[in-house]
């Protein structure tokens, strides 16, 4: 029987909320600080709150600092679990590079440093993008990690293959229709009538199009209604034209969609992915 390594959320680490202490930072003054619960997040970020709430959110520790002459905004979103934090992180980083001296998943652009540790998604935003501000952000990040601890997120085993290693920074996790509407519009129709799902989605650019691979897990829902029948997962594997659908278990599905490969190399790449799916075993 074909199956899949599912380490989704294999650790349920929920790091304890700690009030933030920036007193050890040089030339640092706290200008503002506040905490926002799931009930009050709306007051802070307005409609943007709905996305965090959909992923599963506990509390936001917000601090605005003046360090040297720079204003830095620190937002530590304590999500309900590590998957939720990974989900928000996955759709929030873009065209940024990891810093090797931060021991957790992170991404730095000129104006922002984002971190993921356990159930924390952290955003550190500076005002003018100078190198000095980026260094301050790095110091803040290290300080925060001292407080909340280092915890790594484990991806589903499906993606633990060399085929994907160059693309994993593009892996997204969606937990509801809002997130799908924001970032994965082609998947919205699949999930319009369902709830309690995780969708890991990896979009791999081909020369003229994309290959999209989605892992769907109906969490705590061993029998997700008519989903398998409605979307062709009931006879697995179903390899239709430019699509591959497979039911891994009654509540876990994989969908691969792609366009006509433009080169032999791409054709081979796609075949290897499909073979990888065929050979997955329970571990």
């Amino acid at each position, binding site marked *: 029987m074909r199956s899949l390594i599912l380490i989704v959320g294999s650790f349920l680490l929920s790091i304890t909320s700690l009030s933030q202490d920036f007193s050890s930072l040089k030339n640092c003054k706290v200008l503002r600080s506040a905490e926002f619960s799931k009930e009050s997040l709306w007051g802070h970020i*307005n409609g943007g709150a709905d996305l965090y709430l959909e992923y599963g959110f506990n509390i936001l520790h917000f601090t605005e600092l003046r360090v040297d002459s720079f204003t830095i905004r620190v937002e530590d979103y304590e999500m309900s679990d590590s998957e939720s934090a990974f989900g928000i992180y996955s759709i*929030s980083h873009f065209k940024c590079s990891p810093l090797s001296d931060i021991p957790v998943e992170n991404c730095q652009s000129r*104006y922002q440093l984002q971190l993921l540790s356990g159930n924390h998604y952290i955003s550190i935003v500076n005002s003018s993008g100078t190198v000095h501000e980026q260094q301050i952000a790095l110091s803040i990040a290290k300080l925060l990690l001292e407080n909340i601890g280092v915890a790594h997120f484990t991806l589903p085993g499906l993606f633990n293959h060399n085929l994907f290693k160059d693309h994993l920074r593009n892996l997204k996790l969606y937990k509801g229709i809002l997130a799908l509407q924001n970032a994965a519009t082609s998947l919205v129709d699949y999930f319009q009538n369902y709830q309690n799902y995780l969708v890991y989605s990896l979009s791999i650019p081909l020369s003229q199009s994309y290959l999209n691979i989605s892992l769907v897990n109906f969490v705590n829902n061993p029998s997700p209604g008519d989903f398998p029948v409605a979307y062709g997962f009931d006879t697995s594997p179903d390899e239709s034209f430019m699509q591959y659908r497979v039911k891994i278990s009654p509540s876990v599905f994989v969908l691969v969609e792609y366009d006509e490969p433009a080169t032999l190399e791409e054709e081979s790449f796609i075949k290897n992915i499909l073979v990888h799916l065929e050979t997955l075993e329970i571990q």
Partner: protein
Amino acid sequence: MKRRDFVKISAVCGLGLSVSPAISQPTLASDDTKPKTNIEEALKYPRTQNSLPGKYPGKVVRVNNPKAIVDEKISEDVVYQMVAAGMLSLTGEKNIKNAYHKFFSDTDRIGLKVNPVAGPSLSTSLEITKAIIRQLEESGISRKNILIWDRREFEMHECGFISDNFPGITVIGTEQKDPSGSFYDKDGKLYGENMIDKDWFYWADTEEKYDAETIPYMVNEGRYSYFSKILTQMVDKVINIPILKNAGASVTLCLKNLAYGAVSNTGRLHKQLWAETCAEVPAFPPLRDKVVLNIVDGIKGCFDGGPGANPNFFCNFNTVLIGTDPVAVDRIGYDIVIKKRIDEKIQQTDNPRGRRFMELASKLSLGISDIEKINLKTISV
């Protein structure tokens, strides 16, 4: 016509208009699963010569200038030229004074509706606001007749909309704090409660309970969203100045800035009625009959992360969109943002759902959403 007058007439005619939701439920929504709203009531108000889509239905002027941002600072002079060029192109006039007098008299009280909700890094810019004010003044309109407004006064202050930057101009929000930071007056009443006009409301059959921290931002709970007195009592005309931002795979531009910026108790409206609210609230006379110009600040904007501010997704669009028709302007802005999202691989294709609010607004006769029917003029300065 004032709302009170209309209610009297309606009562005499047996239309049964009142504040009771039980007798003011709408039927427009085609989707029966959506909560009902009182949009039918809005549609009964006779249109005026100022009603949306205004003097130039379906016409949008896009003004580009790649030098609008120099050394990461927005150039007020360049933005001034962009807005001026757009106004002349829109109206066909030869000078700024005549262009603005197409819409305003010297005695009109003019409200500039800005959008500071994402904070200083992604707000309607001070530069475009100042440019518009300069042009209003050059057209003979006194500063004392100009007001800058939005929902949250403190967010405006945070973004630089303060008297130091705008001397002689009133800066005011519906939701207010006192100097001590309290939302409540000495009698324990929200300052925001004094700022809502209970004669004008958007009713929708959905509600949400707000906790003590959230209620100051919503002003009231229940099924009513009341229009701000700023709009109903303090201004005669409105220039709508949103910023070019995405909202998921859609946009938050003219209609959203008006709809969610003009009424209270909006938290309940996001999940089920986002598109409907964007389309329907501007169909009520306080907005429909007062918003005469839409000037989208597209100098700097974002293509993802919106409506909040995520610096990874900021970009310099270096553009300004101008029109009287908020639906047509939104449609052009939508294409700009969605193209950028596709170019940047944020999404792979356009999704028609993102355009739904414009199609609803078009059905309400607020403007033109069909891209084939929009007259877009693009100019460079």
